[in-house]
């Protein structure tokens, strides 16, 4: 496929996909357990992510955020509804780095290239470019345990990018990092996204993180997960988490999030 040719990343890269969404969820529901005693985790979720769009899914525990990402990633099937990802299997980043400890940082990236059929001769060079992209030049031969938490997540990001999918799914990828590192990785991610114009579906329970990163924030209610509200965020990028605009909107969204949580205490 065309993915094996090297070109350059730019804002025009995905424009041919304009018109069709990068991810389309139509009335997606998911239940677990036996029929009859099943528990509904997601109920009638309809959501489009446009090519190059950055969407944050926000919600309290039990809203099915991670379940939703698993469905989009194809790791699980919805009980009903449709999921379309025209660009093929999306890349997925987890809260834990999920790097394979028996491989070096570079080999982890190369494995992703290998599994999508990149010829051996190109893999090494491409892996080094991807590591360079996340500012880990020279980390190719490093073992996973020799890297700090932030570096591991950047290698994981490089590995996800190596999949060459137009859609990147992120499941609370920075939740386990310290605040300073998280802040730096927010900046890094915004920067990478503005260069590559990937479609990003980012799950978090951190309101400020959502407002700091996203073009659109989607609030999910809990048990069952439904779309409660959406905000479009016009604040210019690059933003900072301390920006007054980010702060103000975070206060507003937090109020709605708390309202959703309170409803559960009333039953």
């Amino acid at each position, binding site marked *: 496929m065309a993915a094996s040719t090297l070109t350059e990343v730019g*804002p025009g890269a995905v424009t041919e996909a304009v018109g069709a969404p990068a991810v389309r969820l139509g009335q997606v529901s998911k239940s677990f357990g036996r029929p009859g005693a099943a528990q509904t985790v997601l109920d009638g979720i309809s959501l489009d992510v446009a090519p190059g769009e950055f969407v944050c899914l926000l919600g309290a525990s039990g809203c099915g955020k991670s379940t939703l990402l698993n469905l989009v990633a194809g790791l699980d099937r919805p009980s009903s509804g449709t999921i379309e990802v025209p660009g093929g299997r999306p890349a997925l980043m987890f809260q834990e780095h999920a790097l394979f400890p028996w491989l070096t940082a570079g080999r982890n990236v190369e*494995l992703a290239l290998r599994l999508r059929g990149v010829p051996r001769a190109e893999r090494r060079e491409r892996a080094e470019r991807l590591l360079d992209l996340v500012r880990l030049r020279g980390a190719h031969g490093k073992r*996973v345990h020799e890297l700090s938490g932030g570096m591991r997540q950047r290698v994981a990001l490089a590995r996800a990018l190596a999949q060459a999918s137009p859609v990147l799914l992120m499941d609370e990828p920075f939740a386990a990092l310290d605040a300073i590192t998280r802040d730096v990785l927010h900046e890094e991610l915004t920067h990478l996204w503005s260069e590559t114009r990937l479609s990003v579906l980012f799950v978090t329970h951190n309101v400020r993180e959502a407002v700091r990163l996203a073009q659109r924030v989607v609030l999910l209610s809990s048990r069952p997960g439904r779309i409660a509200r959406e905000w479009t965020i016009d604040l210019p990028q690059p933003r900072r988490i301390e920006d007054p605009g980010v702060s103000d909107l975070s206060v507003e969204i937090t109020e709605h999030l708390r309202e959703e949580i309170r409803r559960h205490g009333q039953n």
Partner: protein
Amino acid sequence: MARTEADAGTAGPPGGGPDAGSARPRGGQDRSEHPDLAGLEAGLDALETRAPVRASLGGVLLNKVLPPVVAVVLVVGAWQIAAAADVKPDYMLPGPLDVWDSLADLWYEGTLFEVIWHSVSRGALGFAASLAIGTPLGLLVARVRAVRAAIGPVLSGLQSLPSVAWVPAAIIWFGLNDSTIYAVVLLGAVPSIANGLIAGVDQVPPLFLRAGRTLGATGLRGIRYVLLPAALPGYLAGLKQGWAFSWRSLMAAELIASSPDLGIGLGQLLENARTNSDMSGVLAAIWLILIVGIGIELLVFAPLERRVLRSRGLLAGTS
């Protein structure tokens, strides 16, 4: 210019046409344009990574070599004192020097290495056969639910059955020949190798399997690129135990099934010394069996295991 992986450029539908190649870098989006961020990340990386510390030769000698040497010297010393004090008569408790003389006799007769090699080659061959049978068996039990339900409990139960219990049965089935000995070795080692692999597979974090699947490692590719490498530490532990079981079973078999046709291995050496009431010879044979067992563990399995664990940061004191 930022020459980067253009993979995002292929985001369009398949056959996305000439546009895919014309993706151009955004003007002025060079990586070096963000010196602040680059410097910040470099600083964080430097602060959070520690250079691995490699132990000095003196430290290794002091911490790793000295303690076992001291322990052996103490044991031999206590033995010598007990023998000199005639706690038991000499024919029951010869001193270390008498045992040393027995070993020296074997050496001068030229049979020492022959005897050791006879047993070690049998042990190695039996272990290799156990490996060839135990590995696919373990994988099958670990991955196929019906097979696991059927023979999983039997396989782990077999581990607690001393393989010496098979010797009488094997003699009746195969007679006094090498088949008997190999049968006993296999029955001892195959379950532990298979169980090691099963434990290794069971302990693979599900996250690795999920990550592998999102990368496209499904089916056989999932087994090859994710499952087997992830299970390697458990598998190696199983191999180590499998060797110990092979060696033990072999000695049991050689000790009981002795016949001139079988040649002289360490087990027969021990049995012959017993029939001659030669206690120095008995102790010499026990020492040899112990030394060969420990030696192979130290020379083959320990370095292998250490290498695997160290590369994954699982060895205490290296991460």
